[in-house]
C-alpha cells in the first residue's frame, strides 16, 4: 500500500480532479527542488491560462488514512486544540466533523471553503494537509468511552513534566501543515470559523521545519539544538503499517493512529555553554551528520557496548540515544516534530522548543515505555522541559461523501 498515493478514482472528484497530475507527483514522495519549481513557473509565467486552483502542489485528502501523518513534514505546522461546548451530543459532533471535513477536502485541493471570504488565498495549497483527532474528553462528553481505541490512553505524570493548561489536553485537535505560511494561516482561519461554532479553543501552537528545497528531499530534519532529529523513524510502507496504523479493535479505528503532542521547551543559552563534545555525548550522536558515536553515517547501527581507549562507554549511560533505543519493535513510532520560536522571554532568554508530534498505533505499549525511560534518565533532560502534553486518536481517512470520524459517530 503506497502511502497516500492517488488512484484516478480517488482523485476524480470535484475538489481534486484539477490537481491530479501534480498530486500524483507529490504523493509518490518525489517532492524536491524540481517539483517546487513546477509551482513557481506556473505562478510566474502562465497564471492567466491556468485555473487558479491548480497553482501549488496538493496532497490527496481522501484515502484509507488521513493525510499529514506519513506525509513528509511541511515547512509550517499549526496544531489547534479545542473542547466541545457543554452539552454537545453526537448529532452536534456529526455536524462539526462533516463541516470540518468539507472545509479540509476543499482547502487541501486548492479550492475555497464554503463560504470563504478570501477565496484567492486558497489557490496555492503547497502540500496543505488537515488532520483531525479526538482527545479522551471527546469520547467522554459524547458517551463513547467504550469505543476508545485499544491502547489510547492519557499519559502518566512524568517526573520531568512542568505542564501548563495553556498547552495541554483538548477534546479535538486540528493539525494543519503547508509549505506556505500564508496558505496555512488562511486554512487555519477557515477551519477555526467552523470549529468555534461547536467548540471553545484551548490552545494554538505553531512550528516550522526547514523550507522546502533548502535540504535534500527525504533528509532528516534538525531541531534548534542543531541535532539531526528523527533518524530512527519508520520509512517503508511495512514499517508504517507495523508502527503507525491501527488495525483490528475497535473496527471503526482500523487505519487510524494515535498522536502524542508534547511541547518541549529548550534552554538554548545553557545548551550553548556545552562544548561540541559534551553535546554529542548527551545525545550519543555526532552533530555534523547524526551518525551514532560508534559509527560514521547517520543510519549506522549504534554499538551500545563499544568502549573508548579509557574503557568508558563510547555512547554514555546517560545518552539520549541509549535511553530511547529499543530492540523491541513494539516500542517504535513515528516522530514528526516542528520547531517553535515564540521570540524572547522577558529575561532575554529565547522562548524556543519543539512541538514533538509522535504517531503510533498504541500509546500504552509503544510510546509510554520509551518516554518513561527518558523521564527516568536522559542527560538531554538538563536542557529540555515538557510544558504541554496532549493525546488524540486520529481516525482513519474517509472517501468522498463521507466525513472523518464517521465510523465512531454514525
Amino acid at each position, binding site marked *: 500500500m503506497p502511502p497516500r498515493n492517488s488512484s484516478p478514482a480517488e482523485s476524480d472528484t470535484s475538489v481534486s480532479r484539477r490537481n491530479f497530475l501534480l498530486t500524483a507527483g507529490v504523493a509518490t514522495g518525489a517532492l524536491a527542488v524540481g517539483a517546487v519549481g513546477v509551482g513557481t513557473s506556473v505562478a510566474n509565467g502562465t497564471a492567466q491560462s491556468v485555473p487558479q486552483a491548480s497553482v501549488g502542489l496538493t496532497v490527496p485528502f481522501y484515502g484509507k488514512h488521513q493525510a499529514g501523518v506519513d506525509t513528509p513534514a511541511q515547512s509550517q505546522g499549526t496544531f489547534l486544540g479545542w473542547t466541545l461546548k457543554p452539552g454537545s451530543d453526537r448529532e452536534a459532533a456529526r455536524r462539526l466533523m462533516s463541516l470540518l471535513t468539507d472545509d479540509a477536502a476543499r482547502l487541501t485541493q486548492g479550492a475555497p471553503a464554503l463560504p470563504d471570504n478570501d477565496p484567492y488565498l486558497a489557490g496555492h495549497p503547497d502540500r496543505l494537509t488537515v488532520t483531525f483527532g479526538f482527545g479522551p474528553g471527546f469520547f467522554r462528553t459524547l458517551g463513547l468511552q467504550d469505543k476508545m481505541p485499544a491502547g489510547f490512553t492519557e499519559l502518566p505524570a512524568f517526573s520531568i513534566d512542568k505542564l501548563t493548561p495553556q498547552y495541554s489536553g483538548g477534546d479535538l485537535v486540528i493539525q494543519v501543515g503547508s509549505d506556505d505560511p500564508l496558505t496555512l494561516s488562511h486554512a487555519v482561519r477557515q477551519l477555526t470559523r467552523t470549529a468555534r461554532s461547536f467548540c471553545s479553543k484551548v490552545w494554538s501552537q505553531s512550528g516550522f521545519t526547514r523550507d522546502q528545497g533548502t535540504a535534500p528531499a527525504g533528509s532528516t530534519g534538525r531541531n534548534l539544538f542543531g541535532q539531526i532529529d528523527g533518524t530512527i523513524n519508520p520509512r517503508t510502507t511495512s514499517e508504517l503499517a507495523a508502527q503507525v496504523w491501527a488495525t483490528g479493535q475497535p473496527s471503526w479505528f482500523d487505519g487510524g493512529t494515535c498522536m502524542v503532542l508534547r511541547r518541549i521547551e529548550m534552554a538554548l543559552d545553557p545548551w550553548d*555553554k*556545552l562544548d561540541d563534545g559534551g553535546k554529542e555525548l*548527551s545525545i550519543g550522536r555526532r552533530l555534523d551528520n547524526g551518525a551514532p558515536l560508534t559509527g560514521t553515517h547517520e543510519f549506522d547501527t549504534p554499538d551500545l557496548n563499544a568502549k573508548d581507549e*579509557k*574503557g*568508558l562507554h563510547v555512547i*554514555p549511560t546517560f545518552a539520549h540515544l541509549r535511553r530511547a533505543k529499543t530492540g523491541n519493535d513494539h516500542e517504535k513510532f513515528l516522530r514528526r516534530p516542528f520547531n517553535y520560536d515564540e521570540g524572547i522571554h522577558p529575561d532575554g532568554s529565547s522562548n524556543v522548543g519543539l512541538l514533538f508530534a509522535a504517531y503510533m498505533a498504541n500509546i500504552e505499549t509503544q510510546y509510554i515505555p520509551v518516554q518513561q525511560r527518558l523521564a527516568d534518565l536522559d542527560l538531554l533532560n538538563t536542557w529540555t522541559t515538557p510544558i504541554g502534553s496532549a493525546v488524540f486518536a486520529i481516525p482513519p481517512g474517509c472517501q468522498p461523501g463521507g466525513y472523518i470520524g464517521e465510523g465512531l459517530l454514525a
Partner: protein
Amino acid sequence: MIRTISLTLSALIAALLMTFAVVGPASAHSDTFQSTPADDATVSTPVTELQFTFVEAVEPSFAPEVLLTTDAGVAVPLGAPTFDASGATMTVPITGGALPNGSYTAAFRIVSADGHPASGELVFTVEGSDADPLAVEPVEEVVSPEPLTDDMLRTADIQESQGQLQLGLGLAAAAAVVVAGVLVIVAVRRRRNSDSK
C-alpha cells in the same frame, strides 16, 4: 597620547587573557580534578578506595562510570560511589579491600551539576602492600545504582559550592585588575622615560 592609550588597552587585554588562562574555559572546568591516589603517585599506604575531587559538584542522578584496571588489564571490582556534602568529592570503595602491589589505571566519566559531562584518567603504583594478588576475573565497571534521595540538601549544597566557585572567580578577576594596573603604570612610565630622552 594615542600610543599611551593603545599600550593601556593592550595591557588590559593581556590581563583579561591571563584571567582566562588562570580560570580556564567554562567548558573544560569539570575535566579538572584532583585524586587520591594522585596521578603518577607511588603509594605505600593501603589503597582501599579512590577519591576524586572536582571543581564543581557531581550530579549524582547520572550514575558516574568508574573503572580501575591493573597494568595487565584486569578490572578491579568497585563499589557504588558516595559523595561528600559539597557533592564535589566522590569516593569509590574498592570492593576487595587494599590493592596488591602493581600499577593501576583509573578512569571516570561524571556529569557535573550543570549537566556537563567530564571524563579523566590517572595512573598510580602500589608498593609494599601485603594484599594477595588479584584473582583474574572479567568484571565490568560498577555503576552506582541509586541516585541520592535528599534532593533538597543536594541542591543547597550545590548552590553553596557554586557560590564558592564564583568567589574564586571574583578573586581571580580582582587579581587580574591589579596586574593590569601594574602593567599600565609600568607601560606609562616607560613611555614617559622614552619621551624624556
